[in-house]
């Protein structure tokens, strides 16, 4: 029964991932991506890692997709009228995508029969405590460095967003105009 549930879930996940690529309107693709992320979270739940599942929804479906949908809402028309890609771009895209698929497929140990036997794998629990211990003991340096990197990125984003204050020409500001009016009134 477990593997039947897995197959249905896997089919739906691949279907929604395909929909992200194939749907013509960009907002529909975004919604398909949200569904895809939620289905991945269900996969994690079946593998017994509730923490990862909650984080998957919190970060991907909650935070990143909100950012993406906001950008679609603000610049929707910019996405709609795009020209179709040229032949060269298509060929390069197919080559890159198949290369990525090949590399990813190396990571899945299909031949050893571990791929489908997920009921057995569900006994390996990834609780909050396990992940916390791994982060703060084994990978402590990397974890702290990522924190520094994120801080750098935040500061950089604020720097980029800050408007450059150009010196205004004399007598162009609102206050200067008011002072002029005041002088005329006198």
């Amino acid at each position, binding site marked *: 029964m477990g593997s039947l549930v897995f197959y249905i879930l896997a089919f739906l996940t691949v279907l929604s991932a395909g929909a992200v690529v194939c749907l013509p309107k960009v907002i529909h693709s975004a*919604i398909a991506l949200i569904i895809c992320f939620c289905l991945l979270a269900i996969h994690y739940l079946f593998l017994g890692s*509730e*923490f990862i599942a909650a984080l998957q*929804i919190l970060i991907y*479906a909650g935070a990143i997709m*909100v950012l993406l*949908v906001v950008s679609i*809402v603000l610049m929707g028309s910019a996405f709609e009228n795009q020209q179709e890609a040229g032949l060269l771009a298509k060929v390069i895209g197919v080559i890159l995508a198949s290369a990525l698929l090949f590399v990813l497929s190396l990571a899945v140990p299909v031949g050893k029969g571990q791929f489908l036997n997920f009921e057995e794998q569900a006994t390996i629990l990834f*609780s909050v405590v396990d992940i916390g211990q791994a982060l703060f003991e084994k990978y402590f340096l990397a974890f702290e460095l990522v924190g520094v990197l994120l801080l750098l990125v935040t500061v950089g984003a604020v720097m980029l967003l800050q408007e450059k204050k150009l010196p205004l020409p004399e007598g162009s500001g609102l206050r200067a105009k008011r002072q002029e009016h005041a002088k005329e009134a006198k």
Partner: protein
Amino acid sequence: MELNELYISLLIGALKALLGITFLLALAAVNTWFERKVSALIQNRTGANRASLFGMDLAGLVNTLVCDPLKAFLKEDWVPKGVSQFMHCLPVFFAVFPVLLCIAAIPFAPPLTALGLEISLQVTNLNAGLLFVFAFGSLAVLGVLLAGYVSNNKFALFGGLRAVAQMVSYEVVLGLSALSMLIIYRSLDLQDMVLAQSGTFYGLPNWGIFLNPLAFFIFFTAMMAETKRAPFDLPESESELVAGYLTEYSGMKFLLFWLSEFAEIVICACLVSIIFLGGWQLPYFDITTITSDWGGVLPDWFNRMNFQWAPLLGAGIFGLKVTAMCVLQIIIRWTLPRFRYDQLMSFCWKILFSLCILNLVGTAILMLSGGYNIWEA
């Protein structure tokens, strides 16, 4: 035998899910009645009292629970131009579904022992319970944003964008104030949090509100902002934006948005009661120690049943706390005026955020210096 156990656990799970969802929806519906009656009380009016069934108006319950939904059913289902029916319905789904899921992680009462099993009175016993609630809370943002987008209307879009900025900002504060409580309780599991709040602490009950009052105020404020109600109702401020993202929604779709708002209030009240008010615990008294007979008042056949009082009492106490928190939110909503938008943002990022960081550092220092040793006590 094994199959039987599977069926029993499935049946128990289904019963618990039914109980949870009934509790949530019933309290959300009663909240709409509270809303009308409390607002009337505050504004010195009578409130809903016109509709009656068989000559009974039940203090306005008929009006709010029978007539209002009936009216919404009968209204025209309006879809704006250039929007498909499917896309117009999708935000409603995103608004209602995550909120209803949140109840799954809420523990109602101490565990019950029946059929030789210990049944935890919580729909699912997740070890990341609080994160689960936050995760689905963050999905609710998408509903509001999409509602603004698919309404094909500038007022609605503006309301949707305001809602996103507000909810995302206050989510940061919410998470940080909850983090300081996680440091104290050392768990993400909501049932563990309730259990950690038994006993006393320098003469006061060992509740989150006494352990860390600042976190309680920040958490409660951020929760009020997450439910998008006054004084944080800028996404749908009627005087500026018609009704914000709700402008193009009518009939049942509007009613479902409304229901999700009241369900959010209930979830918010549940979280506040669990993290800060001891969940199903009573102060100075451990309800799990109650055993049977009440000094021989009850009949003999009842005592022989070995009835467990703790789950029933616990659920009652929890229900009372949640209801009180719901009413408190409604009172605040009808008492305080609305913020201006820049005030809202600077309040969040300049005041609440800095208070959160200070609180977090302070809690961590106290925890390391042994100020909070609630688990050892």
